[in-house]
């Protein structure tokens, strides 16, 4: 992993994001107890309404205490005095002097961030099973149940957005059985855009906002929605630029394994923007800038001879060692789940438009053409993404117990063979770290095809 850490030191924005992810508990406690803000549990990137309603969205795992590397804690503390940029520059300066101990410390920090998150995910998975969810469900659901069992009572509300996955929808229903305290706020997305479905969804959104108003005692205006959507759009723009302009290009600002690591971090943190949209926007915008700056200066790595391997889906659970293994095998892993599912589309914010309706269009578009109301549509999304990334190969993580997405692999393989003519393979996944050797073998065989 040290090869990854060596690079990340150059991206202070990544350190910031990692710190904000892991130090969430302190931040959230302050918000809830001192500032009397309302915490709202969110899953998948559906935090917009919670932000617009001036509540604090939180992906529940972040309420846990993480064992943060002590040096990252020091960096966090130092940053509050000197600012993150100065801290990062200082580290970079020391590192360039060749002080090995410092390099080692930074290596440890990044390694710890990733390890700590994965360990916590696995811990949540175990808690989920101990508390009654059948082991037959996917990694994501088991972990989510674990998160709510362990920390769900701390939130004031749960924002529940229905999607095509029936297990997920039932999990949402089960939240009130897990913790009776939090208010349950629902947004039901109609399965298809027929008739006046957009109007109905707009009304569902308005009803959800009413529930938020009851929760906070504050009005949510159109302007509140627009202001948040503007921030969200900036986040999405930067995220998309990183996906298309940088991850699909032939020159990376760092080595490909580092790059994938950053993309994985983005994928996790995008769900709740680390509970602070403006801070997150600033970080991701500066991340894009930092990357471009390095590329402009020719700092980084020529990856033109490394096959682009689109690895997906990863949001419900995947083996995080994959990108490292692929890198060692001469490839580079591209992650772009949220874009594939059309959750990085911008939401129009003109004053003459009804923002709730625009949000309804955004959700409906994701449902119809991204996530898809059937596997034909969903597999088209994979194809579109693979084409847009100019992928040379596709690796599909088939989650044990996933009945929504994993079930589409047979259809996807057929379509990839027919329309893209690139190699594809499926890797089964149950739990992080459970069968790394098997993943290695499968990826090894897969990468042989590029030699």
């Amino acid at each position, binding site marked *: 992993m040290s090869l990854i850490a060596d690079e990340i030191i150059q991206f202070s924005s990544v350190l910031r994001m990692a710190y904000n992810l892991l130090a969430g508990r302190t931040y959230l406690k302050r918000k809830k107890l001192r500032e009397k803000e309302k915490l709202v549990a969110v899953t998948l990137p559906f935090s917009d309404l919670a932000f617009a309603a001036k509540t604090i969205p939180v992906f529940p795992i972040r309420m846990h205490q993480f064992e943060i590397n002590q040096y990252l804690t020091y960096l966090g503390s130092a940053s509050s005095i000197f600012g993150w940029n100065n801290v990062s520059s200082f580290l970079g300066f020391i590192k360039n002097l060749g002080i090995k101990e410092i390099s080692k410390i930074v290596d440890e920090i990044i390694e710890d961030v990733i390890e700590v998150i994965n360990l916590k995910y696995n811990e949540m998975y175990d808690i989920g099973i101990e508390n009654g969810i059948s082991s037959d469900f996917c990694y994501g659901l088991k972990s989510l149940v674990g998160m709510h069992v362990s920390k769900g009572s701390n939130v004031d509300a749960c924002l529940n957005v229905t999607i095509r996955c029936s297990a997920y929808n*039932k999990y949402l*229903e*089960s939240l009130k*059985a897990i913790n009776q305290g939090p208010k*349950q706020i629902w947004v039901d997305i109609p399965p298809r855009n027929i008739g006046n*479905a957009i109007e109905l969804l707009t009304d569902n959104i308005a009803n959800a906002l009413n529930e938020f108003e009851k929760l906070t005692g504050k009005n949510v205006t159109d302007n509140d929605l627009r202001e948040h959507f503007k921030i969200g759009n900036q986040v999405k723009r930067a995220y998309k630029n990183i996906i298309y302009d940088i991850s699909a290009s032939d020159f990376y600002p760092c080595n490909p394994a580092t790059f994938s690591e950053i993309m994985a971090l983005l994928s996790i943190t995008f769900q709740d923007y680390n509970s602070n949209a403006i801070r997150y926007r600033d970080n991701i915008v500066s991340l894009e800038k930092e990357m471009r700056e390095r590329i402009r200066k020719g700092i980084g790595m020529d990856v033109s001879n490394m096959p682009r391997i689109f690895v997906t889906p990863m949001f419900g659970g995947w083996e995080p060692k994959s990108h490292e293994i692929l890198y060692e095998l001469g490839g580079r892993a591209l992650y772009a789940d949220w874009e594939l599912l059309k959750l990085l589309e911008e939401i129009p914010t003109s004053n003459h438009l009804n923002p709730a309706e625009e949000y309804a269009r955004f959700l409906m578009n994701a449902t119809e053409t991204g996530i898809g109301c*059937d596997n034909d549509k969903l597999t088209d999304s994979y194809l579109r993404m693979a084409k847009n990334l100019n992928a040379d190969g596709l690796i599909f993580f088939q989650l044990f117990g996933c009945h*929504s997405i994993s*079930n589409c692999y047979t259809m996807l393989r057929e379509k990839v063979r027919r329309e893209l003519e690139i190699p594809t393979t499926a890797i089964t996944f149950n739990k992080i770290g459970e069968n790394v050797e098997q993943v290695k073998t499968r990826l090894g065989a897969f990468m042989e095809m590029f030699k």
Partner: protein
Amino acid sequence: MDDLSLLSDFSQFIKEKKLEGVRIVAYLAHDNIPEELFDAADFFPLRLMFGGNDDLMDASHNFLPPSTCAFAQSCIGLFSTKPNEFQFLDKIDYFIVSNHCVSDVCVSEIISKNFNISRLNFYVPYTKNENSLKYFKLELQDLRSKLEDIIGAKISDEKLLKSINKYNQFKKSLLKINELEISGSEKLRVIQKAMLYGPEFLPELDTIIQNFKHNPPSISEISKDVLFTGCSIFINDNMVDLIEEGGGNIVFFDTWIGNHYYSQILDDETIKTDQDPLDLLVLKFENNIYGDHSVPNFLEHKIGLIEKFYQEYKEKKGKKLGVINHIIKFCDHISLMSSFLKDRLQEKGIQVLNLERDYSRANRGQLSTRIEAYLEMM
């Protein structure tokens, strides 16, 4: 009548329907499909309500991973292996792709695509509120218009109303099955046959019910009564036999193939009003509160129903009633809620057996042991 002869007769029935020029529309057997609309369009609605076995499940693995609901796997298996007694599946003209659960979507899509059966969409909203009822009506309008395109004619309100009435009367008769003091296996056979054939079975159904009323068969005095909830027992499945062999007797089927279907009754006054017949179908959907598709109140409704039935039974019979929650392996809806259902009912003093299984033969011994142990404990 055993399952083989039922299927053989049904094959003949479908053959005759086809000869009459009737189109066959099939779907996974869930409880929100508006069969009245198909009937009004002169289609025969064929619900796939057949249990599986190892061969059928194995045959689906070219299309789906083994960690898919065993019923869904078996449905694909039926199309890819076409066992002799299921030759009538060749006669299907249309397949409904619906979203009772995501496996419903996947399996229906796979069947339609790979076995060259034209597809019709019918999606159901997840919640039940004013807007979702409006959405349900949009789906009904869309389906009606697709059916009209196929038949090249309008489906008149009168005809639709007639079909709604026909199904309503049929369900009213079927509901009487709950009151009969007959064994669970006999009840189930009648329910299964009725739901397979639809209202055309009504005269026979009425006769059967009358016969049972006048000449009630004897039920073992020592059998222990249970309420059966969760996933349905489909045709060709031996679950009811396992329960009876273990000393149990199912007195109430709280499943798709059972109360979920025939409790969706509208009162005659409502049907007589001048309202849009589609609104009646919406009302029926709204009233179907025990189905497992909807969120977020499925669990409350389910617990309410079971508790009410349990208390009434205890008062009437003076003994305890068992609850078997049948979970077909990898069923999203029933499996995810099973531990909550059990905990909540047990808090109320109602003993629950969460019985999870797939359709493999190897399970039989283990299932029997679990059922026997549970019934003994009662």
